[in-house]
Structure formats: structure tokens, C-alpha cells
């Protein structure tokens, strides 16, 4: 089809208009051609040779980040990746995750040898170091059960970031298989287990900070739906809710000035709505915001969404 321009063009535009999403035609990359024609950055070369054969091929997921869709396993025998922040600081959030999942009838396996998702190194540009950590996770979370991660950011690292970092690695297929089992916690509850309304009661008001790494995934809507379905809980709107909290992992220490200003701005908006607490799907955003708030003399309570879900279960609905 590619060879015949007319056919391709017709099919291309027709399909696109009809389906909204065109089929992407992946390019074949033949490394041998690089030998014969080293890439010459000349427009003339581009115009009169088959430059396409020299373009490195890009996998589908690296062309359109927001198109991440998986047919993930959704059984109730699950593996829990607690995340390094919960491991080091926020044990109660992780405990809440366990209690919530058990309430839903899940059987939880917590692989003792787990460490981190490798994101700190990945984001700071050290992909070599990152792959080392990801390979460890790959080993620890073997099998085919769903892997539940109570963090949009660590989950995205596992089902998207790692795929980028492994694109040219021999164990890419294994990585891809692993990525296809990873769920963010609330996404799993709503879209994996099909739960739309959360039982129990939770009195109070919250500002819901959508973790940025949930963009383009089902996590944000899932978490919000769960929160809004809880009796007694009011989710308060606040200004510029689409903006980032300024954490960004090592960004917070590499760009300390910008990071701090972003966080302060986020706090300004949230505090103006005067919620009892800030809730998020990511402990890292919360750690950043509560740390800034405390240092700035305007402390605010923060809570992981799992803690709210668990505590709601303790109070019967009226």
C-alpha cells in the first residue's frame, strides 16, 4: 500500500476520517543501509533518496503517549508494589492499600525483595542506572498476576517509561509483558474490578490534586469518581487544578527555585478553597506540598486516597 501512493493516500484519508484514528504505518529500519548511505543532513539527500529506510523506527507507544491502552489482567490475585516512598515514609498509606484491596476480596502477594520503580534515575537522564533498577523489579514481580501500584507516577514508570528506556534492549519483550500487567491502584478498583461507588462514610472536605502522571490514563477520572461517590465527603474545586505541584522528582532539587514557586502557587490555590485536607493518588506530590506548607508556616493535612477509602469503610453510611 505504501508503494502505491494513490491507494495509500485514499485509504489513509478515508480511514482517518472514519475512525478518528489512523493506522500508523511503522517504518522498517534496516541498519545495513546506514553503512551504504551514512545519514547526510542535506535536503538534497532527503529529496532524492529513500530516506525512510534510514529513519530509526519508533514504536507505537512512543509516538503518542496518551494512547496507552492495555488489555490488562484484572484477577483478584494481585502483587503489590508498595513504592519506595511508602517503604520509607508513608507506611500507613501502604497499609491502607492492603486493607482496601482485601476488603475487595483480593489476595495480596507482597514480594519482599522489591525496592523502587527506577524513576528517579530515569527522569534525571541516567537511563543506564534506571534500567538496572527496572530489571530488578522485572525479576521480583515475575508471574502473570496484576501488579497494583498506589502511585500514578510509579505506575506510569512501569507501564510507559520503562518501555522507552528498554526500546533497544534485548529484554524489551519481557518488559512489555510486565508493563501490560501494571495498574495504578484506583484505576484497578474502578476499571479492573468495576467498582463505581464506594461504600461507607467519610466526613469532611478535600482538595483533590490530580497527579500529573495520571494524564492520558484512566486514573484521574477513576479516583475522582470514587471520591465523589463517598457519602459525607465533599471534593472542593480550586483554581488552576491542571497545574503541576512542582515536585518532579529530582527536579525539586535540580531546579529548586522554580520548583518552590510552583509548589507555593499550588498551595495558594488549594488553601484558598480551605479544604480539611489535600488528597492525591501520589504520595510524592503530597510530600512536596506538605513539606512546603510546613516550612512556609501554613501547614495543611495531606492524605493518600487509599487512606480515605479505608477510613470510609470504618464508618457505616447513614
Amino acid at each position, binding site marked *: 500500500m505504501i508503494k502505491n501512493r494513490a491507494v495509500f493516500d485514499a485509504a489513509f484519508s478515508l480511514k482517518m476520517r472514519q475512525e478518528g484514528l489512523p493506522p500508523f504505518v511503522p517504518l522498517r529500519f534496516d541498519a545495513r543501509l546506514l553503512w551504504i548511505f551514512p545519514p547526510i543532513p542535506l535536503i538534497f539527500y532527503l529529496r532524492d533518496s529513500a530516506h525512510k529506510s534510514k529513519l530509526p523506527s519508533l514504536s507505537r507507544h512512543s509516538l503518542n503517549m496518551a494512547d496507552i491502552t492495555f488489555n490488562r489482567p484484572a484477577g483478584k490475585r494481585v502483587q503489590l508494589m508498595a513504592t519506595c516512598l*511508602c517503604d520509607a515514609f508513608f507506611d500507613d498509606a501502604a497499609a491502607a492499600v492492603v486493607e482496601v484491596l482485601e476488603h475487595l476480596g483480593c489476595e495480596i502477594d507482597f514480594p519482599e525483595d522489591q525496592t523502587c520503580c527506577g524513576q528517579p534515575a530515569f527522569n534525571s537522564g541516567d537511563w543506564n542506572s534506571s534500567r538496572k533498577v527496572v530489571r530488578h523489579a522485572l525479576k521480583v514481580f515475575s508471574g502473570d498476576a496484576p501488579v497494583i501500584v498506589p502511585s500514578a507516577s510509579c505506575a506510569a514508570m512501569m507501564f510507559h517509561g520503562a518501555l522507552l528506556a528498554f526500546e533497544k534492549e534485548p529484554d524489551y519483550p519481557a518488559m512489555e509483558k510486565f508493563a501490560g500487567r501494571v495498574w495504578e491502584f484506583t484505576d484497578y478498583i474502578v476499571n479492573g474490578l468495576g467498582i463505581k461507588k464506594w461504600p461507607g462514610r467519610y466526613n469532611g472536605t478535600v482538595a483533590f490534586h490530580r497527579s500529573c502522571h495520571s494524564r492520558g490514563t484512566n486514573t484521574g477520572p477513576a479516583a475522582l469518581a470514587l471520591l465523589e461517590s463517598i457519602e459525607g465527603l465533599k471534593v472542593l474545586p480550586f483554581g488552576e487544578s491542571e497545574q503541576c505541584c512542582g515536585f518532579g522528582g529530582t527536579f525539586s532539587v535540580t531546579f529548586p527555585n522554580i520548583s518552590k514557586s*510552583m509548589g507555593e502557587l499550588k498551595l495558594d490555590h488549594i488553601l484558598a478553597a480551605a479544604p480539611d485536607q489535600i488528597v492525591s493518588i501520589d504520595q510524592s506530590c503530597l510530600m512536596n506540598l506538605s513539606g512546603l506548607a510546613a516550612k512556609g508556616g501554613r501547614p495543611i493535612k495531606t492524605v493518600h486516597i487509599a487512606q480515605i477509602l479505608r477510613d470510609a469503610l470504618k464508618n457505616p453510611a447513614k
Partner: protein
Amino acid sequence: MKFQQIDQYAAHLASDKRASVYGGTKSGYDARLRALTTSYTAPDHLRKLAGNIKQHTIENLDTYLPQVEAKLQSNGVQVHWAGDADEACAHVLRIMRARAATKIVKAKTMVSEEIGLAPYLEKEGIECLETDLGEFIIQIDHDHPSHIVKPIIHKNRREIATSFEKNGLGAYNDDPQVITLRARQFLRHKYLEANVGISGANFVSAESGRLVLVTNEGNSRFSIAATKVHIALVGIEKIVPKDRDLEIFLNLLARSATGQQLTSYTEFIRGPKSTTQPDGPEEMHVIFVDNGRTDVLADECRPILRCIRCSACLNVCPIYRQASGHAYRAVYPGPVGAVLSPLLAGKRFSEMADLPKASTLCGACNEVCPVNIPIPDLLLRLRDRGKKEKSEAAAAATPPMGGFAILASSPLLWKTALKAGVLAPLVPPSVMPAAGKTWVTTRGLPEWRGGKFRQWMKNRKKS
């Protein structure tokens, strides 16, 4: 290097500049959202469709470029190819010399900025006057644009009034209407004096060779109507396959850039004036500019060539809002610039490799981009490259990750560290690693509870 340059720039940015940038970007963001959501029920599908059309086009440039060249020629347009900035400037100069022309009126084009056309021509004794109001203000101020669509986003009207006064454009008056009127009066004469009009092109259809220009001031129309020669500077990635494709791109561009349904002026230019037309340029030239773009095409980051320069990613970007466009040290600022500028820098990549680090990877840019460019992924790829090429600019203030990797790939060390972490608060800040020091000067640290969850899990199993 101890500090990241963009972070330092932001730290020293005057608060009124930051306020101007914040106001301008925020209003741009709001207008975009309103325009897209009131017009379409599923704007996201449109963005993806547009992205796929553009991706297809850049991957098939070897077909579309010869096609557009043939079309343009049959429309009576002279086509020139420029491999780099110098070649592009030289083409313009040659055309000027052939007609013994000395005066240019120029509409807004980012490519001319990129190739440094105005300073090049000035040295040759040719006047190259900006006719877009924002760019005109930049020109009389000897400043640089700091935004793609709103080049003077960093300026307030008092500054502009002052520089008008300094440049003999009337006594101080900071009423925007007066400023606009004065610029208009000054420029009107200039159009008539000029011999050549220069423009860019937002799109070029490979099917018909039509150039499409969008503006809100009508200045490009004046530039072309009043002069005998029209030169268009066009980046090679500006092609769209068919006229029909313009429908989606024009709809998305205006809404994403300025929140309009359609810009005030949309010009479709097929060639020089025909024998039956009373006015218009007798000669038309299109200069296709590569200037590093084929290198980008050969790179994994090539989706950035889909960019239609709408600035939506600048407007939404929290880092751009804090640091302003000049912090990016290049013609293209913001998220798109953080990807494009290091790539276009060629051999100087390493010097610009800190740009991709100026992002929390929050993904807001990807979410608003009308051609759905996965900007965060491209930033990440460039970070990897910066690290591999040992860029000093990129490495500045970045905590080393080697130790972390060893720790996080050995369960035994990891568990030991979890226990040992309790001692962290006892470490005096003076002997802390730099990253820790930075954290504790801006934020409180949560209580260390390493290993507590693991213990809880164990106890639970037993009971």
C-alpha cells in the same frame, strides 16, 4: 556547574516580568480551552488525528517535497532550497540584489528569526522592517521575542510607551490603542516605500502548492499587496498533503494559539499575480529551509517536527510561566523549544542539553498540543542523550544516580538502608549531599518510617 541556568534565570526574573508572562499565558490557556470545548465534543480525537496526519507527512517528505516543488513551479513560483541559515539568507540577498532592492517589509516568521535574517541583511545595507506589532516593538527595542505567538508577552505597556517615545514615535502615552495607531501610521508609509515583502507560511499544501498564512493584524496582506516581490521563508516541515487537510489544521491552530475560531486574516496564496489581477507581487519566491530539520527527522525525536507553532504548550507550561521565554536562550522557547532548540543546535547540542531538564514532566504540554506531540517522552530521550554525551550544562545540580541504582537493585542493601534511614535527621546539613541540603532549605522532611510497612505486613501474616 552548580546551578541550572534556567532555574537561575527564573530566580532573578523581575516580578513584573513574571506577572506579564503569567497573565499572558493564563489568558491564552483559558481562551484555548473555551474555544475548543465549545466547538467540539471530543477535541482530543481531533488532536490525535492532526498529529497522525503531520507524522505521516514528515515521514513522507521525500514524496511531498518534490511534489510541492513541482506544483509551486507550475503556479509560477520560483523555488529555492536552503540547507542552512547562511544559504537561506544568501538566497534572499541574491533576490534583492537582482532587483537592486533595498527595502523589505516583513510579516511575522519564526524561520527568519531562526536564520537571523534581519541582522544579516542590515549588514548588507538592506532595511528589513517588522510589520507585526509585537515584532515591531521588539525590533525598535533591540530585544528578542520571548513567545512564539505573543513575542512581547514579557513587556507591559509602560515599557512599550517609553520605547516609542525614545524612538520618536510620539510623546509618552501608554494607551494600547494609541500605541497601535502610532505604529500603524508609521508602518503605512513603509509598505509603500518597500520593494520586497517577506512572509513565512503556516502551511503549504503539497496538492496545490497553496501557501497559507494566518495573522490577526492583516500586516502580511499589506506586505504582499504593496510590494512587487514576495519571498516566503518556509521550514520543510510545513507541508500538509492536501488542501482538505487545512480544514483540521486551521481549526486547531487558531483555537490552540489564540482561542479564536479563525484568525482575522487567513490568506491562501497560489502564486504571483496573474495577468487578470490588478495588484499583487509580480514575482514570488519560496525558500524551503532545512537548517537542521533533516537531522531532527533522522532522530528519534522527530515527532517534534509535527509542531505547528501554536504556543499552547508554552501557555500551559509552569516552568515557562516561572522562567519566561528568554530563559531558554533560543528562538523557540517553552516545551517545544526545550526539545527543538538542542536538536537544531547540531554540534552545540551539549551546550543546550540543560533545556530538556527544565520540566517536571507533568505532561500538560502533551495534553494541549494540537498535534499531540509526546513532548515529555522527547525531553526524556534528550536527557538520556545529554547524559551519554556528558553535557556539563545538563549535569548541573543533578544528584548522581549510580549509588541509588546499586541500592535499589540489591534487596539486602535496600532493607538495611530502610532501617538506617532513621539516623538521617541526625545528619547535620553541613555534611548532607547537595540534594538533601536543597530539599531541607525549602521544605520540611516527613518522619522516617523505613521498614514499618514491611513489619506490619509480616505481623499481619502471622496473626
